[in-house]
């Protein structure tokens, strides 16, 4: 174990790339959980579908990365609408655990389907031409594309946060998270709001998938692999906390990178260790409001 500063910095920058994905995914999970009370186990699958959608757009229609970044979230959002209306909606009156079981089953079914159709292998998706190349940071070569993921990811998360905290639309969302019945009694169509919120949450995962496609290979298991870490991020940040999930996602990405540099063997465990410590010291999570 040698403490090479360049390596530490480099790994932390790469950690931030992962952190951006953690943030995007846990943000969507938090929004959905806050309003619907559903832990969306299918979240990883929507992330994966985002990557596959980008792949298909490029293979079948020759549509590139930039349009995909707009089109894919719309497609995934539309799928989210269908899923919420046909499946999830019927469970709101039941124990929240059923929502978890349903979305878990959904995740299996969708991932299985993708494996049946596309096979288990990872499919290639190339970096957009405009982001090829790398910048020499002195301590590392940072590919432009990864830098873009970090910056775009952070901007995306902060914009979502601003919309929720600072706009009338966000006020409705927050109000409905506090007290959905009352919001509905004011003439706001809450069922539609739930549907759209679910759609927006999974659309975020879809954007994440497009952004991940050139980095990770487009692979049926890519969602499952990342989502369990994201669940830990959500538990650490505090379930349902919007800002907490963004900050925790990025911070844990950094921490993971740091661990890779100084004690690589622990890098996949470190987030879970942090989770246990947080649970013991502060059971509701770092930013969680409810106990």
């Amino acid at each position: 174990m040698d403490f090479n500063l360049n390596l530490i910095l480099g790994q932390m920058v790469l950690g931030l790339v992962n952190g951006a994905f953690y943030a995007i995914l846990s943000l969507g999970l938090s929004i959905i959980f806050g309003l619907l009370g559903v832990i969306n186990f299918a979240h990883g699958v929507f992330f994966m579908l985002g990557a596959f959608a980008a792949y298909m757009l490029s293979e079948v229609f020759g549509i590139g990365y930039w349009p995909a970044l707009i089109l894919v979230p719309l497609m995934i959002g539309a799928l989210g609408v269908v899923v919420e209306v046909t499946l999830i909606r019927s469970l709101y009156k039941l124990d929240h655990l059923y929502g978890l079981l349903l979305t878990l089953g959904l995740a299996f079914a969708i991932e299985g389907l993708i494996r049946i159709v596309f096979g288990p292998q990872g499919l290639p998706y190339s970096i957009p031409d405009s982001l090829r190349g790398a910048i020499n940071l002195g301590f590392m070569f940072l590919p432009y594309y990864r830098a873009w993921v970090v910056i775009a990811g952070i901007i995306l998360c902060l914009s979502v946060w601003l919309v929720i905290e600072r706009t009338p639309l966000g006020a409705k969302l927050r109000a409905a998270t506090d007290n959905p019945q009352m919001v509905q009694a004011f003439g706001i169509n809450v069922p539609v709001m739930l549907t759209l919120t679910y759609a927006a949450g999974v659309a975020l995962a879809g954007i994440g998938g497009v952004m991940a496609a050139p980095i990770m290979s487009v692979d049926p298991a890519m969602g499952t692999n990342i989502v369990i870490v994201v669940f830990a991020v959500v538990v650490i940040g505090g379930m349902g906390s919007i800002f907490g999930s963004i900050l925790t996602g990025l911070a844990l990405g950094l921490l993971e990178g740091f661990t890779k540099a100084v004690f690589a063997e622990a890098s996949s465990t470190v987030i879970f260790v942090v989770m246990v410590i947080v649970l013991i010291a502060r059971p509701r999570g770092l930013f969680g409001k409810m106990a």
Partner: protein
Amino acid sequence: MLDIADLDAWYGESHVLHGLNMQVPDGKVVSLLGRNGAGKTTTMRTIMGLMGKVRGRLSYEGTDLLKLRPDQVARKGIALCPEDRAIFPSLSVHENLMLPPIIAQGGMSVEHIYELFPNIKERSSSRGTQLSGGEQQMLAIARILRTGAKFLLLDEPTEGLAPVIVQQISRTLAEIKEMGYTILLVEQNAHFVQGIADIHYLIENGHIVDRLEAGEFEKNIAKVDKLLGL
């Protein structure tokens, strides 16, 4: 006019309203008096479409409300100010005020509301739940005045408030009544409703036990007090 006939409603397994009958004519203030657990709040919730299992007739301006979702009921011009005031803790006072969408022409302007409730203006950037109980009550009433709803359901607006605040609310209601709103006022405070309501309904065990015109209220006050357990 709101017309309720033979209304039954349930909370899960427990049967709360038993054949409730009452009418609220347009432009009138109607009080619904009864003890805790008599079914007052349930009546309000049923009108709003917030109860799961309901049977009977419930029509407003000729529309069957029982077929509607709460948001559709609200779109008919009915607005609820619930017992717990339901100020949203995650929203600022201003956001709380602006949350209910405008559903019809003729609602109060924000300026007018601020005139009526100066405290709300002062504290508009605070969190909703940082307000005092009285201020929260004002806010809860103010935000439904903005929407253009013509039929207000006020659930125990005076509960737990200091007499001076109660007086202020009383004045406000009088003003609102002047403007031609229809109000269904649920109360346990007979004194409070006496000066405001045109018609009084007494409710016990989920059904109406008496209906009093404003003029008859005074001489039946003993009966009312007994009903309210005073």
